């Protein structure tokens, strides 16, 4: 079956602009996670959704970052007033339930000029 997909695969934007990154989880997976991976580092947790609600958003770096999952499936990570330091690979993962293996998407590489 289809795995986790993320669009776009690459996004180049200018400092100060707004961006949206989309994640399509595996069908039936109730848990969804966003991670950010800076160059040369491991992924860092941003936010976890169980169903439609953000159960843990402690990893979001500041209030410019926001994520939604309105119907409990697709999720969108939104970044306002982008800064050059936001440049990174943004990874999405989903799992059948919160205590099961997480399956990762290919990521969206965000570059802020």
């Amino acid at each position, binding site marked *: 079956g289809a795995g986790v997909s993320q669009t776009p695969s690459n996004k180049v934007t200018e400092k100060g602009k707004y961006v949206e990154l989309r994640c399509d989880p595996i069908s039936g997976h109730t848990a969804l996670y966003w991670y950010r991976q800076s160059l040369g580092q491991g992924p860092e947790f941003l936010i976890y959704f169980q169903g439609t609600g953000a159960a*843990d958003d402690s990893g979001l770096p500041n209030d410019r970052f926001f994520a939604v999952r309105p119907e409990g499936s697709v999720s969108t990570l939104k970044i306002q007033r982008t800064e050059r330091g936001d440049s990174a690979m943004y990874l999405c993962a989903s799992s059948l339930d919160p205590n099961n293996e997480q399956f990762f998407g290919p990521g969206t590489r965000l570059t802020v000029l």
Partner: protein
Amino acid sequence: AQSVTQPDIHITVSEGASLELRCNYSYGATPYLFWYVQSPGQGLQLLLKYFSGDTLVQGIKGFEAEFKRSQSSFNLRKPSVHWSDAAEYFCAVVSKEETSYDKVIFGPGTSLSVIP
């Protein structure tokens, strides 16, 4: 808080040689440990995991890892490396006691190069 260290930033091995990637974790109770591989342009793929039981775990692509509680280590090994194994490898730990879900903490990664 839990943490994961991978002492080797980059390793180069010859094709056919053996491989060992080091991983150390900091966690009080018995951790849930993972190794992931990330190839360029690809997502993270789970190689193997340790939850309990036999401390030597087998994974995909001929990889294995050994959990050593006394050393707080979970090193990844492969007896004979193939050129296609060139990738970034991440060790990760999950706390089953601090959160109600699997919050994965990743190490910084080890980049593996394979020379013919």
